[in-house]
């Protein structure tokens, strides 16, 4: 008999909550705005599910009621991924030290 994989996933979930807790408290307050935008970007990793859904139809009928939702989800998540990471990068690029400035 083997341990149900669900229990492993639960362990991973709980441990990740601990990590999230610590990792976020360690973020310097001046970067809280980029933090919001980057967490938004990484939460669009849900695109993984969208891709599976989009490619699930039969080859000949690309668009049907089930996988059209997948395509829409890909579209939405892609906006977030590109938009989120880029806007974060744009913000972070602005944080400069004194030296470079003088």
């Amino acid at each position, binding site marked *: 008999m083997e341990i149900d*994989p669900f229990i492993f*996933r639960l362990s*991973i979930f709980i441990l*990740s*909550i601990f*990590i*999230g*807790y610590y*990792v*976020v408290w360690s*973020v*310097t*307050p*001046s*970067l*809280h*705005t*980029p*933090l*919001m*935008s*980057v*967490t*938004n*970007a*990484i*939460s*669009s*990793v*849900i*695109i993984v*599910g969208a*891709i*599976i*859904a*989009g*490619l*699930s*139809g039969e080859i000949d009928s690309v668009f049907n009621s089930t996988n059209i*939702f*997948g*395509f829409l989800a*890909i*579209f939405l998540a*892609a*906006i*977030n*991924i*590109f*938009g*989120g990471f880029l*806007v*974060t*990068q744009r*913000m*972070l690029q*602005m*944080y400069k*030290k*004194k030296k470079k400035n003088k």
Partner: protein
Amino acid sequence: MSLNLLAIFYLVSGILFILALRGLSSPDTSRRGNLFGILGMAIAITVTFLSIGNFSDGFVYVLIFLLAGGFIGVFIAYKIPMTAMPELVAGFHSLVGLAAVFVAISAFLNPQAFNLGFPGNIKIASLIEMSIGGAIGAITFSGSIIAFLKLRGIMSGSPITFKGQHYVNLLLGITIIVLIFYLCDSQSEKYFWRIIAISFLLGLLLIIPIGGADMPVVISMLNSYSGWAAAGIGFTLENSALIITGALVGSSGAILSYIMCKGMNRSFFNVILGGFGGTDQASLSNNKDKKPVKSGNAEDAAFLMKNASSVIIVPGYGMAVAQAQHSLKEMVDSLKKNGIKVSYAIHPVAGRMPGHMNVLLAEANVPYDEVFELEEINNDFANADVAFVIGANDVTNPIAKTDPQSPIYGMPVLDVEKCKSVLFVKRSLSPGYAGVDNELFYRDNTLMLFADAKKMTEEIVKNLD
């Protein structure tokens, strides 16, 4: 690709996301952190493609939608002004929420693709996971839309309340749970659609009663929700990248909301139950214009600062509204040319979102090592000559230290009144976000500069030359 290899890649991408957030512990490492995040995302997307290995028509359409979305994303990211960050984040959240809903729907309609069983015979555990993921996603979506509309000013920022609304919300919540039971029992499609529909409604009702100015806490809370939704879907798809990321985002949003509430000295429930922070309430202040105030013009301000040896700048929400950060930087530069020591003091809840002022100052090329947090700089006011308060109000209000009745009592504030003189740049005597009058305006060592923040700083710059 073998399932094991796939699992390892998803683990790697989860770890890269952890490193992405870790990078934000200092501005130096933050850019590398962001690259880790991008890399993690690229790995997750690539291995998902490879795992399906279906390079047919479908693949082309996936690419088309991906690129179309990406194009829009890039366009938005480049065009958006830094002052619109709060709305942008709210808007993006709504998209993640909707994407989660769509994935949940696909999983429900086409469970074979995800190895969850067959339509009408889906594993109970998966059914529960996907309903929870979909419901939270739907709440995130409609809630974020309201937040977006309120922040953008399209919808009135004032809290829209009606009697018994909390009971209605509670009822809706219970209904969702009951429907999930029915769904598991009957596997019937109609329950699934009802769960999603009611969740949309609940999202609207939850956020409408909350005042526009409280939106930042809401956004962060919705961020947290979108994380939990992603984690729920992650359990459905048995995907560790989604589970890890969901947990990270979930806790991150919750902690940020907590930090904001603590910074404002309010409880989270006080915010969520709504009815506070509307624009109406803010103007309802008492006994103003009664005491005399000293007011001055740009020339007076320039004179005062030129003769100071050290100046501390205290920016607030008004600076963001007026987009005054660039001219402020110019002003500081010309003060520095005169040999005056200048630093910036940032209150943890200055502005309308965490780190708001820091981003704007960074945009104006202010080096981040001239910018100090409250605890670092609060003792320095006593030794400084001038505090230049630009568009800030609540964060300087000494009533937080003295009057236990005041709504901001107990919130730590910047001790600007300890400076030899205090300059306030704002348009009127009206109070700020918390709707509390600021007695500093009436003090002897205060000079009010009534004007738009940007115009005023520009004029001061002229007078400094």
